[in-house]
């Protein structure tokens, strides 16, 4: 099975006006194929930085990232990314957005159409193919974005606070959807959030990060079965929620 | 292909009105197409830019063109006009003589032949005036409004000025300067189409005789072509101020040289003062000599 991500001694600095700032101290992480990993941490701790490096959007300052043993050198269709702001192309219909991802496979026209429709159906939007993103609600947009990314059948799925802009109810239904799809496709997922409940509800492994410089300060393996209800976390993971919140709290005082 | 001529109906060139009306060009096998421009400068720009084969204008653009080494030459001098005048609005200035202009605001188009006329005139009379620049069509409104005390407009505007000012119309004709109304041709045209040029000049010479033989017919024709801008009466009245004869003579060369000197004096154009020899290449008399040898009186 493929989709193994190895992050080896990865460190990243940004060069600004006042010299270089280290966004990420040397970090080692391995994501086993088919696992669901959450990164949680206060704002500015480097969550997006790790994710962008794995996506190939920014170059490592030191260290390297291997996917299935191959070093990454830029964005590649084997690694799908889902953005908080959806990043749908507003000038294309939902269906065309999905077809965009299929173009590189050079499929015959009919097959491309039907595969795109299948992907939309998978996220429950079989009827919305002809709509433009501007005509969809936030939740529907994010579903189209998921369908589009999944159409390319990436072995690794990176999600940067994908449901951060959605309201609480919609977010819950997106969790269900995501788990259902993941159950079927078994891609390796790296999921960035700063909502503890979201991490606890979804992930196999939660890495807690801290800032200045960005680094992983704690790792928890969550082996409770899914679905997990937020109101039962106290019994499912005794003390864990409070312990993670405790790690995050100091950063809050300056907010 | 038609021969294009930058020309608009005006009282200075009856030869062209006659040549067109009597079909002299057509008879000579020429298809003359006229294109109108608001000023001689623009006609000259069109000529230098290769838009027209020949252009009618006063002599100053030719002087500038010669100093700036433009590809053209003067091929005929159709008329000399000594009636250039100063016009005043009696409401602000009851002008009787040139001396009344002292200290006044004189409106004219800077860089036109009347600028040369005025500046030589006031320099000779040792009179100081304030020059106000305005485009030709703006001089009359400016005079009516009192923005300027004296206007020195092109002859085309004289009747309109007389009409608009009515009893307040005042004019002074200082004389001394003759506007040369010339036809210039582009160098490519002179070089590539000598036959057409000869036919064109020959037709003008033919018309010349008719203009001088019976002014009344030519006057009627000119007034008609001007479509109301000039009445027959005003055309007739101004007729005597013109010397209509298609020629090329040394007075033109002398004028070009003096104008060139004036332009260089005032720093408008850089370079050495022109001489008769340096201006001579910009007069192409071959065609006129063929049509009427006596009309060419050049050293």
């Amino acid at each position, binding site marked *: 099975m493929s989709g193994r991500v190895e992050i080896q001694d990865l460190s990243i600095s940004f060069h600004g006006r006042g010299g270089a700032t280290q966004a990420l101290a040397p970090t080692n992480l391995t994501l086993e194929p088919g696992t669901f990993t959450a990164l949680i941490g206060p704002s500015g701790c480097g969550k997006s930085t790790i994710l962008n490096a794995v996506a190939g959007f920014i170059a490592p300052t030191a260290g390297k990232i291997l996917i299935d043993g191959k070093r990454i050198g830029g964005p590649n269709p084997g*690694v799908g990314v889902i953005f908080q702001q959806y*990043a749908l192309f507003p000038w294309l219909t939902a269906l065309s957005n999905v077809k965009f991802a299929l173009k*590189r496979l050079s499929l015959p026209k009919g097959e491309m159409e039907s595969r795109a429709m299948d992907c939309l159906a998978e996220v429950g939007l079989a009827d919305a193919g002809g709509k433009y993103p*501007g005509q969809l609600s936030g939740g529907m947009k994010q579903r189209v974005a998921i369908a589009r990314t999944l159409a390319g059948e990436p072995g690794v799925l990176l999600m940067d606070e994908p449901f951060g802009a959605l309201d609480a109810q919609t977010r819950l239904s997106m969790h269900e959807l995501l788990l259902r799809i993941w159950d079927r496709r078994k891609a390796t997922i790296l999921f960035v959030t700063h909502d503890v409940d979201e991490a606890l509800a979804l992930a196999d492994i939660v890495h807690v990060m801290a800032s200045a410089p960005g680094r992983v300060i704690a790792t928890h393996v969550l082996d409770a079965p899914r679905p997990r209800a937020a109101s039962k976390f106290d019994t499912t993971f005794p003390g864990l929620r409070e312990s993670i919140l405790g790690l995050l709290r100091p950063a809050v005082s300056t907010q | 292909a038609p021969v294009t001529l930058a020309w608009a109906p005006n009282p200075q060139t009856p030869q062209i009105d006659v040549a067109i009306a009597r079909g002299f060009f057509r008879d000579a096998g020429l298809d003359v197409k006229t294109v109108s421009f608001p000023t001689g400068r623009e006609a000259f*720009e069109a000529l230098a*830019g290769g*838009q027209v084969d020949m252009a009618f204008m006063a002599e100053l653009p030719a002087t500038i063109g010669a100093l700036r080494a433009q590809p053209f030459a003067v091929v005929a001098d159709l008329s000399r006009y000594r009636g250039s005048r100063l016009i005043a609005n009696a409401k602000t200035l009851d002008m009787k003589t040139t001396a009344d202009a002292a200290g006044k605001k004189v409106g004219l188009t800077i860089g036109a032949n009347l600028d040369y006329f005025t500046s030589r005139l006031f320099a000779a009379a040792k009179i100081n005036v304030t020059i106000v620049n305005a485009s030709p069509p703006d001089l009359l409104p400016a005079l009516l409004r009192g923005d300027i005390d004296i206007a020195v407009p092109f002859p085309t505007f004289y009747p*309109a000025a007389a009409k608009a000012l009515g009893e307040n119309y005042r004019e002074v004709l200082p004389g001394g300067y003759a506007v040369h109304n010339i036809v210039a041709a582009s160098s490519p045209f002179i070089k590539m189409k000598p036959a057409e040029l000869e036919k064109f000049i020959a037709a003008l010479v033919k018309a010349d005789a008719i203009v001088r033989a019976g002014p009344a017919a030519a006057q009627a024709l000119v007034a008609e072509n001007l479509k109301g801008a000039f009445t027959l009466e005003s055309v007739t009245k101004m007729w005597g101020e013109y010397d209509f004869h298609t020629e090329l003579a040394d007075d033109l060369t002398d004028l070009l040289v003096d104008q060139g000197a004036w332009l260089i004096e005032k720093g408008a154009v850089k370079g050495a003062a022109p001489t008769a020899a340096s201006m001579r290449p910009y007069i192409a008399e071959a065609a006129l000599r063929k049509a009427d040898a006596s009309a060419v009186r050049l050293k």
Partner: protein
Amino acid sequence: MPGPAAVFAGSRDSWVARALEPLTPLLSFAMVLAVWSLVCLSGIVSDSVFPPPWQAWEAAVELYQTGVLASDFAASISRAAIGFAIGATLGIATGLLTGRTALFSLLLNPFLRVMRPIPAIALVPVAIVWFGIGEGSKYFLISYTVFLTVWFNTHHGMEYVPDIYIRASRCLGAPRWREFCTVTIPAAAPHILGGIRLGVALALLSLVAAELSGATSGIGYRLQEARQYIRTDRMFALLIELGLLGAGLDWIVNQIGRRIVHWEQA
């Protein structure tokens, strides 16, 4: 200052105002006409300085009946259209180039930035020396202005294409040319369209400048002619024609643009 009796904030337009909306332009024009007529009837200014509306109307009718209106209109529109087409095409092409390629941007931007404030009217003398007094110089002047505006807007549109679209496109495996055609250009399209709208307005402006010299037809030439003969009535008729033409063209371009860039609605 805000209306006096709006008890509930936020409902800025009153019902009356909303009901009258379709009639608004008529109302406005009626008022302008009324004020204009009154000023003229009062006799404060002479007819030759400020002709009353009916004289302008008569002048317009005269222009229409002699066929001059139609032929001027055709001449001006065709000049504007050709100049606009050349300028807009070059502007978009250059903008696409400078907006996405650092080298071109470095070399061309400062130069074009210094060109931008040079108005077309100032270029008339150069245009005449270069292209003569015929149609060439007119096309040059119109396309010059249109070019700079369209370039500027296209360039900015290309520069500010949100990174996220580019990232999305790349991690979906789109090759560069597909990214360029189906992501970058559409993302910049609203800006390009903005440039085109401005370009239409400026084309009209340069048209008048261009027709001052060496034209024998066209609205600009006719204005110049009216000036020659101090025909203020005609000037007013022509100015109004120009205004309506400009407002109309802007409306048309806006309508077409909205349809093309349908996803970007204010």
